[in-house]
């Protein structure tokens, strides 16, 4: 379990993280979402003791990270796959982690296999690795101590579609076995597919948190009909907020059941009716972080 308690980090007059509190629970994948520069990485660095908090604290399984006797065995950390000595081979980097943690040397080859790095790739120097290979190596370093908590900053970056699927399955399995997974991403689709819980951060502040199901349920419904204008009128009559896109898509805060009922009683034939889930996360993300978006109010 990871607990972050009223955490703030300020640099001079700039506040990077502003009173952030959340908990990542065992058995669940917690997605940490936010636009670039929102404070995700800073928060994660505080968790593992690389950055000092100005105020508040973070703890892993109830203890501050620095008090863990052999952190690699309890927390797997991947903050930046590129932060490695470019002149070391992948195998050597894993070996350094294995030795620091005091693990048997056979673990190195096991982990290389687990993340699908071949022997010849492992013997290449990291300077010649693609970003995807670095991510795999970083995941191997995080997993080698068989920790019960994983903290991963943008682990899907640079992975090909098969790699992303692999990562997703790996993390799912990990959480299902009782592990705590916290992963940050700005790849909304990835987070939506894998996360159980969401923490959305913008401008250093938490703008939303909760289970994915709860947060997306608030996202409403997307509906299409042969005659959208009639549908909009009927829906508005029931007192829900409705918007009509130029392409004829109707969006509403109401849940799909309500929309279906309204359409049925008004005799409107629907061509599509779904919960706004798939578009929902993106909508929610843009809306919640609108103030902190570089592009201005994108929502």
């Amino acid at each position, binding site marked *: 379990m990871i607990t972050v308690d009223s955490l703030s980090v300020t640099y001079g007059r700039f506040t990077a993280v502003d009173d952030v509190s959340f908990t990542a629970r065992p058995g669940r994948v917690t997605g940490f979402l936010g636009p670039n520069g929102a404070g995700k990485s800073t928060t994660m660095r505080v968790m593992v003791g690389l950055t000092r908090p100005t105020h508040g604290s973070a703890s892993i399984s109830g203890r501050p990270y620095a008090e863990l*006797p052999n952190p690699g065995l309890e927390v797997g950390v991947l903050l930046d796959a590129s*932060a490695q000595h470019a002149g070391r081979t992948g195998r050597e980097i894993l070996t350094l982690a294995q030795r620091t943690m005091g693990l048997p040397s056979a673990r190195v080859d096991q982990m290389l296999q687990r993340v699908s790095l071949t022997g010849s790739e492992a013997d290449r120097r990291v300077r010649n690795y693609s970003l995807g290979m670095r991510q795999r190596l970083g995941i191997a370093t995080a997993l080698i101590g068989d920790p019960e908590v994983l903290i991963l900053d943008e682990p899907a970056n640079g992975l090909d579609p098969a790699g992303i699927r692999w990562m997703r399955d790996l993390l799912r399995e990990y959480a299902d076995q009782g592990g705590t997974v916290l992963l940050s991403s700005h790849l909304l689709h990835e987070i939506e597919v894998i996360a159980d819980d969401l923490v959305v951060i913008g401008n250093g502040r938490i703008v939303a948190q909760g289970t994915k199901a709860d947060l997306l349920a608030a996202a409403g419904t997307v509906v299409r009909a042969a005659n959208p204008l009639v549908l909009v009128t009927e829906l508005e009559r029931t007192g829900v907020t409705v918007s009509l896109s130029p392409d004829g898509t109707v969006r509403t805060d109401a849940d799909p059941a309500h929309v279906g009922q309204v359409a049925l009683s008004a005799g409107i034939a629907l061509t599509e009716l779904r919960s706004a889930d798939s578009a929902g996360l993106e909508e929610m993300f843009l809306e919640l972080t609108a103030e902190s978006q570089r592009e201005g109010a994108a929502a």
Partner: protein
Amino acid sequence: MSATTATLEREVPRARTRPAPAPIPTSRIVGVELRKMFDTRSGFWLMMSVGIIAVLATAATLVFAPRDELSYGSFAGAIGVPMTIILPMIAVLAVTSEWSQRAGLTTFTLVPHRGRVIAAKVAATLLVGVVSIAIAFAVGAVGNVAGSAIAGVSTTWDISLGNAATIFLGDALGMLMGFTLGVLIRNSPGAIVGYFVYALVLPVALEPLAAYQHWFRDHRGWLDFNFASAALYDGGLSGTEWAQIAVSGFVWLVLPLAIGLRLVLRSEVK
């Protein structure tokens, strides 16, 4: 609601109760830090260069030194000068690569006590220093035996054990100076340039000052650590010379090292 259902449907995660792991022993951290000094091509060849330069300097002494001046001192001197440059470089890079190559992100996450990591680096660096100097003395000894045999003169051993010890101390202080610049600057090129300024540029720059300012010339040993510690290579130091090393060393080495360590412990690792 649906969230609750989702949690219930999934298998209840089995509680993982494990024994608390044993703390990482310091010897293991020193071992890892030592390994890091050799496991890149540049690191490996920097280490190899200690032996290579010892052999080259010995060979050069054999070829170029006047036959009647062949002695252990001439070999040790020829090997010693390049050694005073290489050993501090080894010390600089042991520290700065964590920042310049950003490997510190992993290092300080696996061992979340930077003081322990830095102490292990000092130990590993000094260990390398001891072995390097031992190799240098050994190669020099072989050169001395071979040289006197070739020249047909008697072999002269003109470095006392005490002098060997002060030479080692001089090299160790040089390494600590490199280490200090490493923790202070935390950037490989910057710290290396810093060391060259300290070891090569500053002495030249201070020379005119010493030539024209009597006050500075008379008190240089108390002010100029590089100048004061140079006496270690000649051996037979007086009490005053030891005191000068201690006083100037406090200003040039101990204070900056303390500041550097404080920066390392407090700074953000990115």
